[in-house]
């Protein structure tokens, strides 16, 4: 049985929920009271993840932390077609890994500014915002050229990958960090495409696209 230690308003937890939705995997959810309860810093939770971070996945006793690691694991263990993960050619695999790293940068900038603005974490929000804006411009340019070549997703290939899943939440939540996506039209179109992938689920702050 898969168990997800989850916080509804966390973009990182949302990455795992998206993956579980796309793969149609039944699972149990343990809600961890990140805000306002700070339950992720409790002794009970630190025993599960000494880093005190969400999400954590428990697959029949195999316990894994870190959203990127969990996405990689689920793609290897539970995606028989190998469509989402590192099942393609070397060029695709390299790009997926590259954009997974980029997703961590998004968490460290847009995610951080969001934690400051919405949940009052003590962070240099303006520096985080400036960093987030730089990343959005890079992503928008990449997606514009992907469209130009008839490619819909971050990595090459006809099917979205875990890189799209990893980069989606904090770009979709950019407004929470006071970053406007009006200047990133290619990102907005990529969001619309991503929301129409069968199995897509929403989180608070993200609206569905409908058909």
């Amino acid at each position: 049985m898969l168990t997800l230690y989850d916080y509804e308003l966390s973009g990182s937890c949302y990455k795992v929920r998206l993956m579980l939705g796309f793969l149609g995997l039944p699972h149990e959810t343990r809600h961890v009271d990140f805000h306002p309860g700070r339950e992720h810093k409790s002794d009970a939770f630190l025993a599960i993840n000494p880093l005190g971070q969400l999400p954590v996945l428990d697959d029949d006793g195999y316990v894994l932390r870190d959203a990127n690691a969990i996405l990689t694991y689920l793609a290897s263990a539970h995606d028989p077609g190998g469509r989402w993960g590192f099942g393609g050619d070397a060029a695709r695999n390299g790009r997926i890994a590259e954009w997974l790293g980029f997703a961590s940068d998004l968490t460290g900038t847009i995610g951080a500014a969001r934690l400051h603005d919405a949940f009052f974490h003590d962070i240099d929000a303006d520096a985080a915002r400036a960093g987030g804006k730089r990343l959005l411009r890079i992503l928008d340019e990449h997606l514009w050229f992907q469209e130009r070549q008839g490619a819909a997703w971050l990595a090459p290939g006809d099917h979205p990958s875990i890189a799209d899943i990893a980069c989606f939440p904090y770009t979709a939540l950019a407004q929470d960090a006071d970053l406007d996506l009006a200047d990133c039209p290619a990102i907005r179109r990529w969001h619309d495409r991503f929301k129409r992938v069968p199995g897509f689920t929403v989180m608070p702050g993200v609206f569905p696209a409908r058909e």
Partner: protein
Amino acid sequence: MLNDEQRRAWQPVASSTDLVARHVFAGAIWGQELALWRADDGHVNAWENRCLHRGVRLTIGVNLGSELMCQYHGWRYANRTAGCTYIPAHPADAPARTICNRVYPAVERHGLVWAALEGTVEGAALPELPMDGLVLRPVPVDVPPAEVEAALAAEFGRDRVRWLVQPVDAGRSIIRGVLAEQPAEPLPVLRRWSARLGRLRDRLEALPRPPVAPIPPELHRVDPALAGLPEPGPAGTSLRLRVARKWPVAEDVTAFRLAPLAGELPAFQPGAHIDVALPNGLTRQYSLTNGPDDTAAWVIGVKREPAGLGGSTCLHDAVREGDVLAVSPPRNNFPLRRDGLLTLFIAGGIGLTPLLAMARTLHLARLPYHFHAFARSVAHLPFVDVLDGLGDAVERHIGLDPAATTAKLEAIIGTQGEKHELYVCGPTPFLDAARAIAAAKGWPDTAVHFEYFKNERPRDASNAFEVALARSALTLDVAPGQSIVEAVAAHGIHIPTSCAQGACGTCRVGVIEGAIDHQDVHLTPSEKARGDCLMACVSRAAAGRLVLDL
């Protein structure tokens, strides 16, 4: 805050390729935000980025192909006109026709979408641009437009690339470039320019400059009639429409396609009808058959009624393609709920027309419905091509005698399922039978929706009575043979009317006090029993005096 030149200048606001299907694009001119979206028919809409219900940006809404849906309360706005077509909080009501979002003129040319804050498409003055140029990747820059223009001229000159700077706001711009010729391999060229412009952007943004205050959005006040709770307003036959096509759609039924002489038709809702002023002086009501994806011209179906007063024969015989008719804006007294779990349409003969518009609406929205079309013969069934487009949801019942019709209606209507809605339209005996069956099977009035084309009940206008108009503080007499509409009109109070026989529902008036002699076929029995409204064209006081909410 904005000057005339800023308002009237045409600005590039998007690349054509930006407006992909089922997407809403965010644009701006001088601090005024635009929601840009391409409908499935290719039309580009440029609207103020604000739903006028509660101010929510439409760029977070959904492009449904022929309508734009606001994310907050699901209000739908029509392609082209931006008229509100549906308010989910009040599914039984037709939205006031005049609820319209603000529309900006927009045209698509040279691979770019252009818009202005004021002006008309016809008067669009656009710069000369290469016809088949290569549109570069636009690059937003957080720097005032004039500075960006100067920097572009100094850095790259104007020979190779035609530069356009979109003034997003006082301190924000978008660099748009068009290359005169299509290179053999565009991709490396596009990459090179994207990189160059990116470097220019970084350099310009790094220059020290005092902060520039954004231009506040102009907030236009809505029509006073909408500031209160909406009521339908009066409407004359103010539109001029050209008969673009006239063609037979069944035995004795002719269809007319009515197109605007210029501009767009007003928004309409499924179930709406129009008044058509005929060359022989008569006015007749016809339902629109159009779906929400079909808004360029209206299509009505007219059945020849040789025994009638000459309205239909005039349309059949005298009106030709190319003729211009005077037509009223659409009015909807037969609104379609979209919150039913199943909607049942039952159409008798030409009564199919308003139901066709409704079924097309649900079909596009992928909401569940069944459509039952009754006709004397296959040749008598109108708009077969449209019915075919609705696919499996349609069942045809051809050539049934009255007894077989009743039996079939019994079988179709059955007992009401949870949140099932029934819509019936057709000849009076057919409609009466369907309503009687629904009532006998226990359907509540509120779930049975109907529209009579005419009122064939006997009417009696022989009594005299008094009406008091509560809001106008006026008491007046209604003489025998005179209607309430006529009596109050003599005192300068205008009640909008359409059919003048108690069928269409346009002249509904609130009743505060008094016993009503209902003589219409529009209201349901429970609405009549409630006694809080009447059809002023035919209904009267049962005794003594009526107090009206006028």
